[in-house]
């Protein structure tokens, strides 16, 4: 059998899972080869030279050799580790959503240049922005475009009539905006003019410009709903990582409630002792 030469490729580390006692399987996303599963040997040991270079949410150049069933990471050099994505929970949460979308939508040995550039650019922007949520919205719109689920924002997805900003609906199942007449007939969910304008603005603007837009709480909830339903159509299932965002949002309430029940318990104990 001819010996296959090791290859070198640039890639973003999407995720990892443990293998045996000391190894991990890394899922890499390469612009030329798509999704690659490779074993990083010994990376769970403290003195491994590879450990920090194969952490998820980092970009690097990887040497890969053909193993028996999976490829093996022979060497790695980090190009960008995006520290803010690891240090700030809000940024990490948004990054994980992006990475999960890419992980679930790419195949092995399929060239994925445009999606790679989109992910890389979005992670760069996420590390620099003060509005992580907006970067994720911008990413999702372009991700849907690239996957062939571009939401229709110019004409009604039911009757093809041109739409104005007011009185519309949004149907994720039909793939876009629904005119007031069709929406009145029960198609789609309410699409406020603010969210309609925001979607159109994000469609034509850069990630950096989108991150500058101030979005109210109500519009934000509505936009999240439309994007979530659109993604569920594209993925044919729910995003697992969105559960973490919800858990983080509830964390402070859980902490406050635990603190108040503890205070109540202490007070009851003191009263009991006094009696």
């Amino acid at each position, binding site marked *: 059998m001819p010996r296959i030469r090791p290859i070198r490729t640039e890639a973003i580390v999407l995720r990892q899972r443990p293998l045996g006692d000391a190894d991990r399987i890394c899922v890499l996303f390469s612009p030329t080869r798509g999704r690659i599963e490779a074993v990083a040997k010994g990376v769970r040991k403290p003195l491994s030279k590879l450990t920090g270079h194969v952490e998820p949410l980092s970009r690097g150049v990887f040497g890969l050799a053909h193993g028996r069933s999976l490829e093996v990471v022979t060497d790695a050099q980090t190009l960008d580790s995006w520290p803010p994505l690891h240090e700030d*929970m809000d940024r990490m949460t948004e990054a994980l959503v992006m990475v999960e979308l890419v992980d679930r939508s790419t195949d092995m040995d399929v060239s994925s240049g445009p999606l790679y550039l989109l992910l890389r650019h979005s992670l760069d922007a996420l590390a620099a922005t003060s509005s992580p949520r907006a970067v994720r919205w911008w990413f999702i719109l372009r991700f849907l475009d690239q996957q062939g689920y571009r939401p229709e924002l110019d004409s009604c997805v039911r009757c093809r009539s041109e739409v104005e900003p007011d009185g519309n609906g949004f149907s994720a199942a039909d793939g876009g905006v629904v005119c007031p007449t069709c929406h009145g007939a029960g198609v789609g969910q309410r699409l406020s003019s603010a969210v309609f304008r925001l979607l159109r603005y994000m469609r034509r603007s850069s990630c950096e410009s989108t991150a500058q837009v101030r979005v109210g709480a109500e519009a934000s909830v509505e936009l999240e709903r439309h994007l979530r339903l659109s993604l569920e159509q594209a993925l044919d299932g729910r995003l697992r990582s969105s*559960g*973490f965002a919800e858990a983080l949002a509830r964390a*402070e309430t859980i902490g406050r409630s635990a603190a108040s029940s503890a205070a109540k318990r202490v007070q009851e104990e003191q009263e009991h002792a006094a009696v």
Partner: protein
Amino acid sequence: MQRSPATAPTIARLIEAFHRLPGIGQKTAQRLAYHVLRAPRAEAEALADALIEVKDSTRLCGVCQNITDADPCALCLDPQRSDSTICVVEEPLDVAAIERAGVHRGRYHVLHGAISPMDGVGPEDLKVRELLARLGDATVEEVILATNPNLEGEATAGYLFRVIAAMGVRITRIAHGLPVGADVEYADERTLRAAMTHRVEFDGRGSDD
């Protein structure tokens, strides 16, 4: 696994059972099975008894959630240990590692995992509620978050910080940087950044002191 006709079915079953253990490949499983076969009956019985006993008599400590055969466990009952500090770890083996180092004289709390957003593992799958119940006790002054310095460990620490911060307890995170014996030249950007950010005053003594 394809069963060879040269291997008796009972031995093949034992090889398969060893092969299912973590870190045991096919060859090692075969070696272990034939070792058991050649060993005296008493040795095989002791192994079988130990396996059954560990399943029958161990449980989770009602306080720290570590695996124990007595509830509360010896670490929770030890009067020499301080109640004011709780070190939160991912797995029971992490407790053993920290105890070997002899660097923590407080209590522990084992989460039994880490938050893994992409695998759908959330806080409700860990022993977080049990930790919060312990923090209600006014004796706890500090929580040390000793989850692994990887993505899942950081996500878990970040979540716990948000929950515990509201409870008015001091929260610390184990430091991370270069491991003893490592080469700076091979360190990645984030490790070096952490090592530089958390550098300490040098007083001429080794870093172990």
